[in-house]
């Protein structure tokens, strides 16, 4: 199982849970599994063409999936996936 960190705007789908478990060999498969467990979640993360929405960041073990293999980034048991809305610059 993969640990998934859920940001506040999505917790209405997870009965308020900030962290849930899901499975999938890739980020795409995991998002589909999240949708099965928490219907409505996928449309919030991905647009109509299936791409991650512009203002959603997904991190696997702390690394942005755009530096990995995007939605095809492989996952294994024990990985941590974080869903984070884009944050304005604060340097």
């Amino acid at each position, binding site marked *: 199982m993969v640990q998934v960190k859920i940001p506040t*705007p999505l917790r209405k789908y997870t009965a308020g849970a900030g962290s849930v478990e899901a499975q999938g060999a890739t980020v795409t498969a995991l998002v589909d599994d999240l949708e099965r467990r928490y219907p409505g979640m996928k449309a919030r993360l991905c647009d109509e063409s299936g791409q991650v929405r512009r*203002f959603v960041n997904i991190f696997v073990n702390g690394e*942005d999936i*755009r530096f990995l293999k995007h939605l095809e980034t492989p996952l294994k048991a024990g990985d941590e996936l974080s869903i984070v809305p*884009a*944050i*304005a610059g*604060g*340097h």
Partner: protein
Amino acid sequence: MSYVKGLRCRECGGETPVAPLHVCEICFGPLEVVYDYAAIRRVLTHEAIAARPRNLWRYRELLPLDGEPRVGFHSGFTPLVRADRLAAALGVDELWVKDDSVNHPTFSYKDRVVSVAISKAMEFGFDTVSCASTGNLANSVSAHAARAGLACYIFIPDDLEQGKVIGSTIYGPRTIAIRGNYDDVNRLCSEVADKYGWAFVNINMRPYYTEGAKTYGFEVAEQLGWRLPRHIVVPTAGGTILPKVAKAFRELRDLGLAQGDFKIYSAQAGGCAPVVQALHKGTDLITPVKPATIAKSIAIGNPADGFYVLKAVRESGGWGEAVTDEEIVSAIRLLARTEGIFTEPAGGTTVAVTKKLIDQGRIPRNEPIVVSVTGNGYKTLEAVLDTVEQPFRIAARLTDFDELYARLAGGREANAV
């Protein structure tokens, strides 16, 4: 009285009432303040503005407060400097520097956005303010929180230069150093904001915070005699200020307060130029990068509002460029030696990009140009340490000085200090 109607998602257009919220509940798009421009048009005149104190609140109808401002009474209204010697060096007719390196109280443009964010946080009833930052933002939040008597938590990466840390800690915030990089800090902060219910200026105060950046544009227009600058070059990090300066110009024009067309240009460091790369490629898709530049205050590899920078630049007919660290340092020196203004690498980036755009013919030499300087060089001495001349060391004897002077004058080095 308030002229704010509510918040609207910049992506899907969904509307929501004013609240400490920063992302659209539907699509995660950023929320933006919606104003009642018809009502503002009736009250906001050149005369009304001219009668007010010279700070950023002189444009208060176009800022998102319901009541009176609480902080920032000396922030904003920084000099717009006619830069004739820099103009001559760059080979152009009319050049201006909008100089936020002397913004009050912490010497960067952040004092604008933080004045608005903290005033709004107090209006919402928060007693604790916070931010994730590596420098200018933390400095400004710490100072304004001290002045307002609010509790303050600053989250920083644990490998920062001492100067940047002390520039915040002197004001007495709780400072938490996170083992990790800036992205790690930001991720943690989005979770802390959720759990602790504080006002994070760049998270749940973001729709209000970013509106403060418009005052930079309002001032440029007012200081040019209510004329919009034909060309303005603005640095891009997370993408807050550039779209808001463009918005400020559009608002003034729509309200009949300023005339003219403007083109806006984005400046980035070559070691962190995701927005300029997308601009050059002609795509809307911004590919994040791992920053590698001395311009740390603008080294954001994953700019939240980068898309809106692209949009504002393209709508105005402007462009963008990136420059090397060497060009940045040499531009910091050029600005210092022609205009007596010492900026941080972000400002060096803007000056260097302006030069590049002029040399490319993108900005014509015979039209007015405004260069945006958003931060102060005294905070980032490390950036120029290796390139400035060392003092000449002599004994306290006139003959020693005579000898040195003869050498300097003879060697035509009289300007080397």
